[in-house]
């Protein structure tokens, strides 16, 4: 009995970690899903396009706002950032920050 309980607890923990409940990337706000087509699935990066996953939410948000305000030069992100609202940018930043690369 005393050996069984820790074993059950470890097994329970393992099964919870392996749960088929959706991981964070699958619960992205729909506005964040649009980023995947360039920034890679889950925003983990692709070729010459940088990863946005795992970066600090405050930094991602500040970058998008800077692009949107034309304060940060870029090849394309300014044109993109100007399509999103404050709330969407904040939600996307929070989402990508919590994804492990």
């Amino acid at each position, binding site marked *: *009995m005393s050996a*069984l*309980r820790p074993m*059950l*607890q470890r*097994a*329970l923990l393992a*099964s*919870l970690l*392996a*749960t*088929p*409940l*959706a991981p964070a*990337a*699958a*619960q992205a706000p*729909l*506005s964040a*899903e*649009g980023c*995947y*087509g*360039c*920034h*890679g*699935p889950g925003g983990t990066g*692709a*070729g*010459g*396009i940088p990863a946005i996953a795992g970066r600090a939410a405050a930094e991602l948000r500040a970058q998008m706002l800077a692009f949107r305000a034309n304060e940060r030069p870029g*090849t*394309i992100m300014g*044109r*993109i950032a*100007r*399509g*999103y609202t404050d709330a*969407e940018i904040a939600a996307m930043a929070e989402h990508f920050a919590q994804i492990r690369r």
Partner: protein
Amino acid sequence: MQTLTRRAALGAALLAPLAAPRAVNAQGGTAAQARLVVIGGGFGGASAASFARRRFPWMEVTLVEPKTRFVTCPYGNLVIGGTKRIDDISHGYDGLRARGVRVVHDWASGIDANARTVRLAGGQTLTYDRLILSPGIALRWGAVEGYDEAASEVMPHAWVPGDGAQTALLRRQLEAMPDGGVVGIAIPGNPFRCPPGPYERISMIASYLKRHKPRSKILALDAKDAFSKQGLFQDAWAELYPGLIEWVPANRDGRVVRVDARERVLETEFGEKHKVAVANVIPPQSAARIAIEAGLADNSGWVPVNPVTFESRAAPGIHVVGDANIPGPMPKSGYIANSTAKQAVASAAASLRGEAPPTALYYNTCYSHVGDEYGISVVGIFRPNADGTAIVEVPNSGGVSPRGNLPEQRRLEAIYADAWYDSITRDMFA
């Protein structure tokens, strides 16, 4: 007694995550009744199937696609120009199977919207709770007189890749053409699949000709007077391929109305006959036949849809995404198909749960390769309007790459284009 209860509780907790999650739908049914059928395994369909399994694992997803390997339209122009091979742009369906999508390699031969069934050519009937229809385009044979399916074996369109044969054919013809030949390209009026596509094709052929057959020319005969990213394309052509490309708009007799496949002649509206060495005819298009036969298309030949859920106006519960629909101001692009497919699936899932569809945002970035290390882009971000009656572009957003002498911008956008291709095909197929 308490120990037994605690052990039993731990045991139950162990078992619970192993059971399939059950969702109760609006009809009071369980996950087993949340059947999503997806017709078409391209940019719209593959995106829909992958997203559905990832986000709504309680939905059973069946994907119907006749091809076992999907050859993308995007980057087909690079195969035509000789910098990529067909294998580089071909994708299989094992990734979707690994996500739990049931992939059926067959043709969908008919839809019964009342019974909510799809009949397959092989005889099977699939029952759906919600249908995502992303069948692509049909080429309107005969809309250009003399341009029928037989003619396309001599004058390829390479606008519906299929198994890649058309793309490979056009490439072979270019390789076989002697130096000094004229490559003729007939470009249709709006709307058609991929607005900048013909002009990227011109660019990639020009790049090949300049390097390998520099006395050759391209004659682009256009049914339109203007085109997507025109300023950028023409700046690049003047810089990279001076004297190689002649673009003739409709108002200078550019519209091709008749072809003679055997003689390789493209005849324009006012009777001018252009004999060419290689002819690429991109004919007028419509929604794929299955959409038309299901009664979903209007007189234009394209499918009107709800701006928020993408349900066909003619049939609730059937979401039509990709090139087959009428997208308002949005282009017929792969990224739009990918973006709207996700909204369609989320809307279908919401309706199965008796919920309102999510707030929509539709997203497009379209890159074009114009030359070596020379890429350009157009961005468009769209939303339904306030009362959900139309799709509108978000004000002050999007737009094309800046014009001017910007070699680093062009080099970066060519790099980003490649990364886009990798990203989006992983989003669809991995």
